[in-house]
């Protein structure tokens, strides 16, 4: 009895469909990816159970950590208009390319006087500049840098998008309250009585 030979099936699988799926997913992830700006201040936000998502436009984020304050204005157009307004206030000039460069800076914390140098520096030097300085000046005068940044960015948002800018505070858990209070006072001076505190998620207690 000769054995019946089972013909061997080839084990190679058609990979075309697999490849299609993979690249479809890949494109999706690339397109939805938002590059996260590295935070110059290492902030650990406290957690809370609130479920309100931070909007992603018309927003300014004030980061507080190590006693310093950094500001991040969301949106390139708003940033550039804010810079223009600030320059007018401090009667300085920024070239077009400087404004462009400023438009892609994320969070920054330097006195306005050092801004030109900061914009023209590259990423490595920027970090050093920021570390050597004490964040945005928030002395108690009515026209300190922080006050003006917030005021001008609010005006910029109102001009460009006709909405009220939201101000969020992103503080480090271990930051002492007086620092936060100082920021809140600056906000309240310009009648921003409503602001949000950025927290990380935490499971709601049942």
């Amino acid at each position, binding site marked *: 009895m000769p054995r019946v030979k089972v013909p061997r099936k080839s084990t190679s699988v058609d*990979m075309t469909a697999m490849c299609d799926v993979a690249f479809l997913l890949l494109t999706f992830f*690339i397109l939805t990816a938002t590059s996260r700006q590295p935070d110059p201040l290492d902030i650990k936000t406290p957690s809370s159970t609130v479920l309100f*998502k931070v909007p992603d436009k018309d927003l300014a984020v004030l980061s507080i950590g190590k006693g310093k304050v950094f500001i991040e204005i969301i949106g390139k157009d708003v940033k550039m208009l804010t810079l223009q307004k600030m320059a007018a206030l401090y009667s300085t000039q920024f070239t077009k390319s400087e404004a462009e460069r400023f438009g892609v800076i994320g969070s920054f914390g330097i006195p306005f006087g050092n801004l030109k140098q900061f914009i023209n520096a590259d990423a490595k030097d920027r970090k050093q500049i920021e570390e050597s300085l004490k964040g945005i000046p928030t002395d108690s005068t009515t026209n300190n840098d922080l006050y003006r940044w917030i005021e001008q960015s609010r005006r910029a948002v109102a001009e460009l998008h006709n909405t009220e800018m939201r101000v969020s505070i992103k503080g480090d858990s271990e930051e002492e309250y007086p620092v936060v*209070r100082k920021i809140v006072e600056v906000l309240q001076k310009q009648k921003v*009585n409503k602001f949000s505190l950025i927290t990380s998620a935490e499971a709601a*207690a049942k």
Partner: protein
Amino acid sequence: MAELNTGGGGDKGGKVRSKKQSTRVDLTAMVDLAFLLITFFMLTTSLSKPLAMDIAKPDKDIKDENRKELKASQTMTILLGKNNKIAWYMGVPSPNTPPTIEGFGDIRASLLKNKQEVKEKMGGKDIVIVIKPTDGSTYKNFVDIMDELSITKTNINAPAIDDDPAHLMDSEKDFMRAQGILK
């Protein structure tokens, strides 16, 4: 004249059949690469946006006419002190009803208890919370207490956040100093 000779070298008799190459490419490597990139992007993207807690504070320099008078027995004052400690009291602090010192673990029960008591005493009125963060407290304490209020749903009327150090009463200061939770 303007002709192109595409004949090539002319055929020598029979046609030379070039062997048909298979057009199938091995895509395994390609798929590997694609999935590698997918995993990379999945791990580096943060689809979760940060959350925000809304805080509303009363206007500072407003000469407001519609201020409400609150009964002392309806209010609960929460003092945030040093070392993650809380001191709270109902109504007006007096020597015979000293504030209670608690940690953040116990405050929830007290909030619920006081809320219930106020409801019973005042005929269904809601409790009013005054929060006084002192200089010794951290930002985390502040966020935590606001969070506790929202968990226990005691913030029906927005809690009054009074962070002006000048508003800290002497009796409160003395008590906190005695307990070692004043900066």
